[in-house]
């Protein structure tokens, strides 16, 4: 196991070291100590590494991640795993705004709560939140799955495209063009698969309700102007 202590190593040195790892590396276990809320920790990694961050981080942890499994043993600031391509990012604590923003693949697991705009503009990522999510989550979400064990705040899925939103608790309100949809077997299978991959348990797929696009705003119509 390689250990990087951010008390003595700079952010630049740490990220550069992680970027130097390639698919064939046999140094796959990494531990990062003393993150102390620093921004852009372990961003742009593109190798099958297991990275354990021991503490809380600031903005954009694991941004644009590819392949790596990153675990934050603490909470994360805004934009955790933004634009993630593949791999898995687990945050043991809470996350701030825009978690998983524009994510294109892989999985983000939040074991605490997520603030507003969770999954904003998501493009294929799977996001699982064990707690609650804040307002305007999944705004303009394009594709991928957002699974929430707790409650969702105001305006869930505003201007949503084809992403699927599964919420177990209450939804304070739905955003423009977002509606509750029928939960079919295929959706239960999707949830089941995501739960298995997330490593979280204690809930059943049928506990969730499904939300998605009414597809009424897909092509502009002046008579829908009040919805905007």
């Amino acid at each position, binding site marked *: 196991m390689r250990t990087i202590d951010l008390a003595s190593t700079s952010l630049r040195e740490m990220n550069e070291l992680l970027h130097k790892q390639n698919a064939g590396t046999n140094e796959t276990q990494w531990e990062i100590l003393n993150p102390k809320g620093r921004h852009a920790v372990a961003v742009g990694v593109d190798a099958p590494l297991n990275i354990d961050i021991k503490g809380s981080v600031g903005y954009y942890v694991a941004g644009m991640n590819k392949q790596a499994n990153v675990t934050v043993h603490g909470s994360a600031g805004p934009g955790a795993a933004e634009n993630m391509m593949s791999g898995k990012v687990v945050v043991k604590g809470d996350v701030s705004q825009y978690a998983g923003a524009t994510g294109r693949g892989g999985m983000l697991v939040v074991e605490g709560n997520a603030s507003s705009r969770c999954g904003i*503009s998501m493009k294929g990522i799977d996001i699982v939140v064990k707690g609650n999510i804040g307002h305007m989550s999944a705004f303009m979400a*394009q594709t991928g799955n957002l699974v929430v064990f707790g409650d969702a705040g105001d305006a869930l899925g505003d201007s949503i*495209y084809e992403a699927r939103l599964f919420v177990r608790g209450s939804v304070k309100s739905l955003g423009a063009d977002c509606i509750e949809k029928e939960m079919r077997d295929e959706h239960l299978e999707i949830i089941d698969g995501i739960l298995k991959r997330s490593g979280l348990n204690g809930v059943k797929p049928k506990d969730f309700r499904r939300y998605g696009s009414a597809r009424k705003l897909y092509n502009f119509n002046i008579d829908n102007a009040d919805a905007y």
Partner: protein
Amino acid sequence: MSYHNPPTTPRKAAAFDDYALSEIRRAATTGIYDIRGGGAKRKVPHFDDLLFLGASMSRYPLEGYREKCSTNVVIGTRFAKKPIELKIPITIAGMSFGSLSANAKEALGRGATIAGTSTTTGDGGMTPEERGQSQTLVYQYLPSRYGMNPDDLRKADAIEVVVGQGAKPGGGGMLLGQKISDRVAEMRTLPKGIDQRSACRHPDWTGPDDLEIKILELREITDWEKPIYIKVGGARPYYDVALAVKAGADAVVVDGMQGGTAATQEVFIEHVGQPTLACIRPAVQALQDLGMHRKVQLIVSGGIRNGADVAKALALGADAVSVGTAALIALGDNDPALESEYNKLHTTAGAYDDWHEGRDPAGITTQDPELSRRLDPVLAGRRLANYLKVMTLEAQTIARACGHNHVHNLTPEDLCALTIEAAAMARVPLAGTGWIPGQGNF
């Protein structure tokens, strides 16, 4: 004998001219605002309202064709490990694959590369055609993040964080369903045929303090190699440029209201934002006040058409200019040779701006395979290269006449203004006077 009132000449109200009347009728018929491409068409103070003074008794000119007048520009000297060096101070502005055909994007890359300058992606990601043909490619980082990925980010030569654009400061993008081909839909991760709304704000940062951290992230992902630009629309250039410097930009792009767009509401294009001429001096002032002029490069765009415009923008303090609309014209857009086809679209060559409809007879602003094929990317690229070279020669001609061995040595003292408005905006004296409106006690 009967008395007849002598008839008066029919008169239309100045406020209700033919265009205003037709727009009222159009709105009443369709119930939707007018959407079009391009930039502001209204007449605003512009570079034509400035003149160069030329050499005289107090300064001597350089010999044309013999004494060198350099045009190179280096962008990204502040932080980037790999600044980009361009042979000419004229770059190609960001225009997306989606709004433009793949052939048009390839042609832009070819032309820019021959001329020794950069081209820029747009909202919709990087295409292999464009990357392959562009020696220097600037990759835009936009609110939609369509097609964004770390591999393309690393393939880019520079990154441009787009906060706004001159045609619509404060507005997002829109690509109407007609232009969403399979390939465009795939690149943007959206269903085919639906309107693609690009957000007006970035999804994961708000304000300059956040942007500073976002730029840190982009630099870390790309190992501090790439110059990072921030592009803003011509809204509040003094403060926008100051904040861009604070956020850590290597370069700032300021796009005035004549700058084009692929598609936006006419009301937005014509009524929001400032003329390019009005943006340059406040932007330069911000850099000077921070001690960053020439350290953070300023790129100005919006309505640049010829070498005189280039020279005037540089004289006012820009490091480079960017062309979009003019580049499309050079490729063959709005060519009078296609007049009969423009007539079928109820317009005329030179006025065609319904780029969002995807029916461009020149094959440039379209995704229609048949129309796209009309544009030969090699020939069109050559035309663009010719045009860029002519503009460069023109700017050099003026710089030599003013006694400068580099186009960057042009200064506001080389200029005078033809109108009080232009004098005030460009902060140069009204011709024949020493008067700069707004300076001193006037």
